[in-house]
């Protein structure tokens, strides 16, 4: 019994692997084309966003805040939030947008979400690496004190983003109201994302509230991983893990439900 089941699982994984590979290439060609730098455009947006905001902050806030470089601080906040905002806006109405692909049975709705998430993740990581290396060269970015902690924080941030996308994608198909609320919600949540402040800069009561946010916990992990002993961080990795699991379960159930009622032209 076990052997054929394992065999079937292996075959299915092979099919999904092929599908995701094909969808990635398709998505990259339709979005960025083959002209000039081609798919490298994927990292330009987070790069520009992080870079320009960092310059503005450098001008308005001076070179340092609470003892850490302002440019590095802003970059460390903006690249993750760009990942989140792009993923969310790209997964709204994703099933309708990809309707013609549902003609091929081996392509599942989850593949659409996964592919767009992976592309944004790739873009964000490439942008981070690119800008990080340049800034380290000019001594404006810290050499990561604990690269493992930094990557763990990034992964938790990304996985929580993915789990939110799993909810946004079916919810936006169920009700148009959801889609209209997405831009304002992602804007309102910025102060609660740990973007502008470290937990240690806040009053204890405010810190207590923000400690509930999975974004803040993951962001604190990333920054602790970057600056190490230079800063104090407050985080609990179980918070983003727990939130991710809960959101993913809800999201997967919704995806399954919505797929049944989806009408494809």
């Amino acid at each position: 019994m076990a052997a054929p089941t394992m065999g079937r699982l292996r075959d299915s994984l092979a099919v999904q692997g092929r599908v995701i590979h094909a969808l990635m290439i398709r998505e990259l060609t339709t979005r960025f084309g083959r002209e000039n730098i081609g798919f490298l455009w994927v990292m330009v947006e987070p790069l520009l966003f992080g870079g320009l905001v960092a310059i503005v902050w450098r001008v308005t806030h001076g070179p340092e805040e609470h003892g850490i470089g302002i440019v590095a601080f802003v970059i460390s906040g903006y690249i993750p939030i760009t990942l989140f905002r792009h993923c969310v806006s790209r997964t709204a109405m994703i099933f309708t947008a990809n309707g013609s692909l549902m003609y091929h049975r081996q392509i599942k709705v989850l593949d659409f979400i996964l592919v767009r998430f992976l592309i944004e993740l790739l873009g964000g990581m490439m942008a981070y690496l690119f800008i990080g290396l340049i800034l380290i060269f000019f001594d404006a970015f810290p050499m990561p004190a604990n690269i493992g902690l930094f990557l763990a924080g990034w992964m938790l941030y990304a996985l929580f983003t993915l789990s939110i996308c799993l909810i946004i994608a079916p919810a936006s198909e169920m009700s148009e109201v959801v889609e209209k609320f997405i831009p304002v919600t992602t804007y309102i949540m910025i102060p609660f994302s740990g973007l502008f402040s470290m937990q240690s800069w806040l009053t204890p009561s405010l810190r207590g509230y923000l400690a509930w946010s999975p974004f803040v916990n993951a962001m604190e992990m990333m920054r602790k991983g970057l600056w190490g002993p230079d800063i104090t961080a407050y985080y609990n990795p179980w918070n983003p893990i727990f939130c991710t699991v809960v959101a993913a379960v809800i999201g997967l159930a919704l995806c399954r439900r919505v797929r049944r009622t989806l009408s494809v032209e």
Partner: protein
Amino acid sequence: MITCTNICKSYTHGSARKQVLRDVNLTFAAGSRVALLGRNGAGKSTLIKLIGGVEMPTSGRITRHMSVSWPLGFAGGFQGSLTGYDNARFIARIYNRDYREMRAYVEDFTELGRQLKMPVKTYSSGMRARLAFALSLAIEFDCYLVDEIILVGDQNFQRKCQYELFEKRQDRSMILASHSTETVRDFCNEAVIIHGGIATAYDDVNHAVDLYSAL
């Protein structure tokens, strides 16, 4: 073999609700060529989409014991902004076929030449039909789902389809939604009439066509 058991399909839009298929039970045996007959909006395309797995039934079950093509029709299956070649490459990837063989077959079957380097959205419906048929024939399915589209092709295309689908692949199954009674009489050996959400199967195609013409 494909079996549909107690298939119901309804669409809801806001508070409006339309039941398209009611309790459809059908069996499509290997090698059968089934015509789906019915007036506009009767649910032929809906049934084809359900069998192809593009949409899911509201209730009921569809089991497929052979490889079934995607519904070959006017819409779907292609990305309009990509070229014919890109679409072929995409399909080759997801169906795990060799792209070079597929490209050769598509070039030969479609006779579209340089047009294959243009985005599919610039194609006429006849050209799309050629591409869709070429790709699905290159993959070699056991059962082809055809939604109207044969009729949009020119003489040359219809001859090719006739040879490739009806003569060379005589052992394959086909489910064909069509309003052309001539095509149905010539190529199908079974028929299903969909009327008022109810599907009825007939072994005698001529009898079914006569009934359908009287609807």
